[in-house]
């Protein structure tokens, strides 16, 4: 949580996270090129670099795409999500290196612009074996570039989280394009049963985890089908079923609302964190503030405003507790955002 823009708000966790990532990538590339030199003694250095960067980027993309649903299914994966954007930007640079080396190696020595050559070098669209797979990779790289370029909180704040999220959901399109790029390219040539199997396993993991997490999330997304009481409030359940300093999430008026228990009182606020639209209802009350489980953004219970000097705010909802049951007004209070 930061009150002003900085290039990277470094802290110990981010340094550890990035160090581990870079060390893992360096080890992978060293192992790939080292082993490749012996297993394929006639492969050129350029070929090994192209393949090493490409496989590393693809493996990292699988990891990145699995982090989200894993966090939905098990909170122990949340530390991986904390600095996921750095993983994404790192993955883009690996993919960019793969693309740049490949374009130089295969397209730069002709009399056609290398990028044009990528697009028109192969035009057998009716063939699976000879399908022009390189434009698929280029299209994915353009999407990844757009995402990497807008990954900073500056863009997140200025585009607003929903627009930013919508933009960054294009990663799934990029992933599908890359599956096509690899299946119609590498798999048509030198792929072995092992490499083919690994790709299939990665696809099962990515799509399987997302679908399972999506199905699980569909339950709390169902609107609470309960009538308003005489004061226009909705009964959202017993206070006793909410753990102390935690929340129950319900869908009211088309969006999720997190109903927190703080002693004998209940407080309701939007479930959507202003930072990256993280699930506030999965956070906890710390120092009297609801704390987002993703990046630690905080909001005061009583008015949904972040404690000074921060300026974020989320809508809150009026609540009452009667006979041990919590009632929430589905109409949010006026915004608590400060000028």
């Amino acid at each position, binding site marked *: 949580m930061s009150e002003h823009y900085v290039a990277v708000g470094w802290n110990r966790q981010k340094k550890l996270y990035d160090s581990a990532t870079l060390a893992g990538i360096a080890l992978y590339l060293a192992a790939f090129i080292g082993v490749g030199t012996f297993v394929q003694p006639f492969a050129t250095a350029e070929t090994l670099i192209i393949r090493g960067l490409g496989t590393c980027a693809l493996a990292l993309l699988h990891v990145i795409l699995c982090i989200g649903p894993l966090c939905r299914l098990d909170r122990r994966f949340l530390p991986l999500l904390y600095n996921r954007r750095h993983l994404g930007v790192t993955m883009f640079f690996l993919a960019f290196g793969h693309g740049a080396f490949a374009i130089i190696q295969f397209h730069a020595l002709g009399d056609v612009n290398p990028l044009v050559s990528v697009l028109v070098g192969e035009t057998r669209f009716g063939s699976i074996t000879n399908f022009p797979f390189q434009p698929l990779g280029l299209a994915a790289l353009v999407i990844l570039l757009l995402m990497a370029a807008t990954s900073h909180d500056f863009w997140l704040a200025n585009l607003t989280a929903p627009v930013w999220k919508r933009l960054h959901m294009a990663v799934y399109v990029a992933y599908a394009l890359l599956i096509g790029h690899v299946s119609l390219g590498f798999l048509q040539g030198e792929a072995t049963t092992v490499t083919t199997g690994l790709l299939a396993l990665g696809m099962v993991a990515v799509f399987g985890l997302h679908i399972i997490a999506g199905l699980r999330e569909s339950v709390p997304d169902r609107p609470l089908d309960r009538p308003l009481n005489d004061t226009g409030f909705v009964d959202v359940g017993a206070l006793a079923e909410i753990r102390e300093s935690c929340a129950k999430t319900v*869908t009211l008026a088309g969006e999720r609302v997190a109903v927190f228990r703080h002693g004998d009182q209940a407080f309701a606020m939007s479930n959507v964190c202003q930072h990256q639209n993280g699930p506030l209802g999965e956070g906890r009350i710390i120092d009297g503030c609801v704390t987002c489980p993703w990046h630690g953004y905080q909001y005061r219970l009583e008015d949904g405003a972040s404690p000074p000097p921060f300026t974020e705010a989320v809508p809150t909802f009026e609540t009452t507790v009667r006979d041990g049951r919590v009632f929430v007004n589905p109409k949010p209070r006026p915004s608590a955002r400060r000028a």
Partner: protein
Amino acid sequence: MIRSLRLAHRVALPVLGVASFGIFAAAVATRPQPPITTQYPAALASDRPNRSEVLALGDTFDVPGISLGRFEENGKKWLLIAPNRDPGRPDLLAYWSPMKPAGKELPAGVILLGALSGAASVSLSLPTNVPASGGFVVLYSPADRTVFATAQLLPTGR
């Protein structure tokens, strides 16, 4: 994530998953299998190198997957080079060399025998000035300017 995006995500992922698996399955199902040589190509029928007549003399290349044999026919000496899979070099040329290449370069005094063609077996006649045994067969890639493989032609009977 806001609810509308979650709903879009819930629809988009299965659709992209089906499309991705469809592309992957079609690509795997139709990918060309590496050709395995079981007989001589028709183009080489005139050479009529009956496999049983080919002498397997223990000449071997220093890369796996390429067999080398020798035979004589019509008073000419022949080499049979039979890859059991595509060597992955489309431009390989076969040379006879009086000495073993020291590095990536072809030694002096090499004689061009002919070209390989993917995984197809080829029969290449040895020039008359080449001794029946001794010397080396060198496979060379002009594009990469490197020696791809070398085999020593051992004396007959070994």
